[in-house]
C-alpha cells in the first residue's frame, strides 16, 4: 500500500487507514528501537497522534507512510534516549540468552546488533520488520537510496562476519 499525494495536507481517514493497515510493522520497529513492547506501543500511538495533529503540514512530496515512519522512528528514538541506559530489548522482552535450544550462542550476534551504528540498525529494522524498499527507507532516514544500499550492505557484512567468527 502506498499513498502518494499531489497536494498539501492529508485527511484523518488516510492516516487511520495507514494505522490499521501497518500498525504491527510500526510496533515491531518501535519495539526493536525502544526495547520494550509497552513503551514501543506508546511511541507508535504518540507518533500517530503527532501525525494527526500535524496532518495539515504534510507536503505530499513522498509516500504518506514514509512521513509517518519518520515520526514513529523519531518518537521511538526519543523514548529510548529518555530512558538511558539503553535497554537491550531481549531482557525487557523476558527472553534470556539461555532460552536458546539450538546450541547457538545468540549473545554474540545480539552484541553485534547492538554495536551497529544507529543508522545501520534503523535501516535493518525498517528493511526487516516493515519490508520497506530502499526509496522509502531513504526518505525516512533522510539519506539517498545509494546510502541505504551501502548501509544495509555494511550492516549485513558486519553481522555475517561476527556470526562466522562465532561458528567457524
Amino acid at each position, binding site marked *: 500500500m502506498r499513498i502518494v499525494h499531489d497536494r498539501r495536507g492529508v485527511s484523518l481517514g488516510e492516516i487511520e487507514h495507514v494505522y490499521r493497515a501497518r500498525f504491527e510493522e510500526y510496533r515491531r520497529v518501535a519495539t*526493536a528501537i525502544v526495547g520494550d513492547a509497552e513503551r514501543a506501543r506508546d511511541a507508535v500511538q504518540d507518533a500517530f497522534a503527532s501525525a494527526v495533529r500535524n496532518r495539515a503540514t504534510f507536503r505530499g512530496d513522498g509516500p504518506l507512510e514514509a512521513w509517518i515512519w519518520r515520526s514513529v522512528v523519531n518518537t521511538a528514538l526519543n523514548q529510548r534516549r529518555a530512558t538511558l541506559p539503553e535497554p537491550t530489548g531481549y531482557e525487557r522482552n523476558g527472553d534470556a540468552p539461555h532460552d536458546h535450544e539450538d546450541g*547457538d550462542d545468540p549473545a554474540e550476534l545480539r552484541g553485534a546488533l547492538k554495536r551497529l551504528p544507529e543508522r545501520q540498525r534503523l535501516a535493518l529494522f525498517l528493511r526487516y520488520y516493515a519490508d520497506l524498499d530502499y526509496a522509502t527507507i531513504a526518505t525516512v532516514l533522510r539519506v539517498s537510496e545509494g546510502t541505504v544500499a551501502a548501509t544495509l550492505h555494511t550492516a549485513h557484512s558486519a553481522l555475517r562476519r561476527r556470526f562466522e567468527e562465532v561458528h567457524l
Partner: protein
Amino acid sequence: MNDFDPAVALELDRLAPPAAALLDWSDVLARAGHRSHRRGGVAVSVVVLAAVALLATPALGIRGKVDALLGVDGRSRLHFIAILKPVAGYGTGTVDATPVRAFTHVGSDRTIGFAQAISVKVDFGGLSGPATVARVRVTAPRRPSGKGFVVRLCGPCRTGTTVVIRRRGLILALFDGRATAEIATAAHPNGELRGPIGVWFTRSR
C-alpha cells in the same frame, strides 16, 4: 520477507517478536487532542441540545417544524450508543444509554447542566473471560479547568445488565462526543472491548 541471513532474522524476531495487534484509534485521537473533532462535537452538541429543548417545549408552537427539520418526532427517543470493538481478542458488544424521561422533563430552562438519570444497558459476547468491569471514560472538556472522569457501570458484569446512572456532566459529555465505553476482563484489565459513544435518535411509533 527479504534477503536476511536466517540467523540475523532469528535474532531480529527475538528482539521484536510478532504479537496480536492492539489497535486503538480512539486513543490516538485522544492523544492528538483532535481539535477539529471536538469543535465538530461541540457544534453537534449545541444543535442536539437545542433540539432537545425545542422538542420538549411544545408551548413554543414550533415543535412540528423542528421535528420535520430534524427528521424526528415527538415519539423519538434519544440514545447514546457505543458499538464496542475488540482491543484484544474477538469479542463484540454494545452500550446503549437512554436519558430517563429526558423528553418529558427537560424544559428549555434546564438543558444546560442537567443531571438526568441515564439508563444504560450493557451487552457483550465472545470475551476471553468474565467481564470484570464495564465503565465509561469521559475525557476532559477543552476549557482549562475541565477534568475527565470515569463512571463505573457494573462489575463483575453479565451481558444484558441494565443500570441507572446519575452523574452531573455525563449527558453533556455524551452529547459532546467525549465518552468512550469499555469492558474489561481479567486478561485485559484496561479494556478488552472499547468504543466511542455517539448520539442516536430512534423512533418508537
